[in-house]
């Protein structure tokens, strides 16, 4: 008899907690940091092997204050955005062209499939040799990483436009440009954005690989510097910034998808 009220309160507490997702996420992060800190203290690990969260936090504020972090963060961000711009434009244009010409698609598809299986890390040194250690080689590596997922998804999206809807456009005497605007773009958009979401996260990897090979700025460069100076806290700061960067890009495309594809809400409801 005595236990009943306390157990209801308990389940009540857990139920409320499991419903509050924000709080739950915050708790799990705090718990993680706590374990990390305790581990470092208990094992008495030196800072260059595993810096404590407090050390990483101090380092973060430090490089933030001197402007060092922003300089390298913005360099990497610039490479990624330029790479996305070129890669996505080229992939979309080629994807549209290939969707209109089955012959060209058949001729090119072995190369497209083959080139997609080349690990970017393996050809990044080549691009640095050909295009120098500056901005250009990084932008190219980023472009190439986003190029294939976006190209393939553009192609699939356009090819899967229902033929009966094409017939509707034809019966309404729509020009090719109008068919593109009123039918093909909206119909292919969900698949295209799926490709962009994958490509955007991959482009972060592309930029870092390029910077690790050869560079004088960027978060990848910062990681190299940190490693060289046994400043492991600096490496951690750079890695955390990369995670934030990749997650924001992913989130941004996700936001775009939800916005543009609001008519698809029924899919989630079902």
């Amino acid at each position, binding site marked *: 008899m005595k236990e009943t009220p306390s157990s209801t309160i308990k389940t009540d507490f857990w139920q409320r907690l499991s419903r509050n997702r924000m709080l739950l996420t915050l708790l799990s992060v705090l718990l993680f940091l706590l374990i990390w800190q305790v581990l470092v203290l208990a094992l008495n690990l030196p800072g260059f092997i595993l810096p404590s969260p407090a050390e990483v936090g101090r380092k973060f504020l430090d490089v933030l204050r001197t402007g060092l972090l922003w300089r390298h963060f913005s360099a990497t961000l610039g490479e990624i955005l330029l790479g996305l711009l070129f890669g996505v434009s080229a992939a979309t244009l080629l994807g549209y062209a290939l969707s209109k010409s089955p012959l060209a698609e058949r001729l090119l598809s072995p190369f497209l499939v083959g080139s997609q299986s080349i690990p970017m890390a393996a050809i990044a040194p080549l691009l640095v040799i050909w295009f120098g250690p500056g901005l250009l080689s990084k932008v190219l590596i980023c472009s190439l990483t986003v190029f294939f997922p976006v190209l393939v998804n553009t192609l699939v999206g356009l090819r899967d436009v229902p033929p009966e809807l094409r017939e509707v456009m034809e*019966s309404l005497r729509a020009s090719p440009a109008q068919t593109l605007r*009123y039918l093909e773009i909206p119909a292919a958009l969900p698949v295209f954005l799926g490709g962009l979401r994958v490509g955007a996260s991959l482009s972060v990897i592309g930029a870092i690989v390029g910077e690790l090979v050869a560079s004088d700025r960027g978060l990848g460069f910062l990681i190299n510097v940190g490693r060289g100076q046994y400043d492991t806290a600096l490496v951690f700061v750079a890695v955390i910034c990369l995670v934030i960067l990749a997650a924001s890009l992913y989130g941004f495309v996700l936001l775009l998808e939800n916005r543009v594809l609001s008519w698809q809400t029924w899919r989630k409801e079902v």
Partner: protein
Amino acid sequence: MTLSPGEIALEVNDLEVSFVDSDGSLEVLDKISFSIEKNAFVCIVGPSGGGKSTLLRAVAGLIQPTGGKILFPGVAEDKAQTGLVFQKPNLLPWRTLRDNISLPLEIDQRPEAEISVLTQEMIRLVGLEGFEKAYPHELSGGMAQRVAIARCLVQDPEILLLDEPFGQLDALTRERMGDELLRIWNERRKTVLMVTHSISEAIFLADRVLVLTCRPARLIMDLPIELPRPRTDAMRYLPEFTEAARLLHAQLKDTTAPACQL
């Protein structure tokens, strides 16, 4: 009907259509000739897989005929000659009901104000006021097909082509849509050419019923329906109605007999 001297809206002369694929050539339409007077309602019946849809698509300009001519006498060149309604509504799922109906006007690059007025008028005509902002997946089959009809009519085409438009609806909705179609046709007189596989639907709706054979399709019957308008449900039990049904049924049974693949 054939005696009354009306203006001709559509003239089909010796129309031939064949499709060529790896297995050779498939003859679908064999020298089909007929003409339709302005504002007449004509139905085409025939065995399934025959060539009814092909005939309609050729008239709509979606298929290039192999031989023969399709003429629209007395229709201005710059005007929409035909509008096609498909068996499925084929609405754009990302557009609201209103925006699906306004699509042909947007393609035609009409001014915004005109689009708005004409679209609203169409929504009223097909009785879908209040559903302007609904998306196609929120509509019932009958409602979606009304939107498709409105999308077709909004271009104000000279000839309305309907390809088994009620084929996917249940029997009751189908009859209601037939009444609805006659009401719309009454309100804005149009030349209608409609494919159906229902004999009673054809008789109930049409001034004339054309019968096609199976592939290669030939025109074997052109039956005038002498029922007065407006048509009512009671007419379904008139001797004229039953007689027409008997004639069409006999003719169709003949054509579907031995040579047809079902």
